[in-house]
């Protein structure tokens, strides 16, 4: 846990959040990349033959798209917390709008509300244009201030 907090601090200082993403094994399996543009963080899921669900189109597995979006929300929230801590997923709801083709996918998360205990997020994922999303999602996270507090003590 100390290691995580240290990494968050370093990431904020350097603006390079990739080491944090790489801390999550499934994010590495998927090949998630994190790119910062000023204060905006855009997540990129590069085309990867192992992420295919439908081999005939071919299209990315729906679960992969959803996981990628969940990860986007988790990171956006974790990085935005006043004190770095863990955000725990409560629920996640995704609408699929278009097939995710075998090419790079992008996602960005907006925090609509960050309370003391719960964070509300919405995520949009796209390939060609942000105005033509392949999926959109909503998620609630529990902001585990207790964990953070324990570490602070």
């Amino acid at each position: 846990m100390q290691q995580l907090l240290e990494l968050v601090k370093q990431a904020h200082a350097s603006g390079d959040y990739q080491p944090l993403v790489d801390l999550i094994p499934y994010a590495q399996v998927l090949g998630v990349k994190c790119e910062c543009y000023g204060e905006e963080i855009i997540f990129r899921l590069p085309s990867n033959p192992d992420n295919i669900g439908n081999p005939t189109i071919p299209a990315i597995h729906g679960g992969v798209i959803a996981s990628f979006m969940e990860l986007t929300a988790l990171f956006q929230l974790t990085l935005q917390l006043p004190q770095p801590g863990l955000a725990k997923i409560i629920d996640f709801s995704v609408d699929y709008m278009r097939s995710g083709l075998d090419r790079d996918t992008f996602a960005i998360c907006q925090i609509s509300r960050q309370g003391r205990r719960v964070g509300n997020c919405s995520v949009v994922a796209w390939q060609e244009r942000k105005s033509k999303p392949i999926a959109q999602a909503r998620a609630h996270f529990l902001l585990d201030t207790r964990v953070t507090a324990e570490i602070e003590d």
Partner: protein
Amino acid sequence: MKKNDFGARCMRFLDAQPHMRKLGIRLISAEKSKVTLVLPVQSQLLTEGIDTYFHGGVLTTLVDAASSVSTLCALEQFELCPTLDLRIDHMRTPVQSESLFVSAECYRVTRSVLFTRASVFQDDPDRPVAYAIATFMRPEGGVTDSAFRAMIEGASDATTA
């Protein structure tokens, strides 16, 4: 359709998907409208030093897979049904050191839409880790790419399709 035919169809469907092969998601059982799958413990998903998942993500993939496989057991013929929406509630944190099981059921079939529910568990099915509901769109007029259908239905069924 006989019980073991559902199983064979589901296994071919899982085998056809590169991401399912990557995670080693396997079929445990299949019957009319119901399936159980497993995600085995694997080093590529482990975080050293802690016994929990930092990221629920892999559960989302698992329930999405199980929900779509359950639709295969609810339809007479294979139809490629894209997911319309999926909602997952995380009820407890799973441990990394045990396999994750998921039971999914396609509980309602209409002309256009399929409705599914799924629950993820580890040691005890009555203590679920996560619960999910999803909907799938049936292709218009039951049209599915015939090559893909032949692959999933197997050689014997493909000749009659």
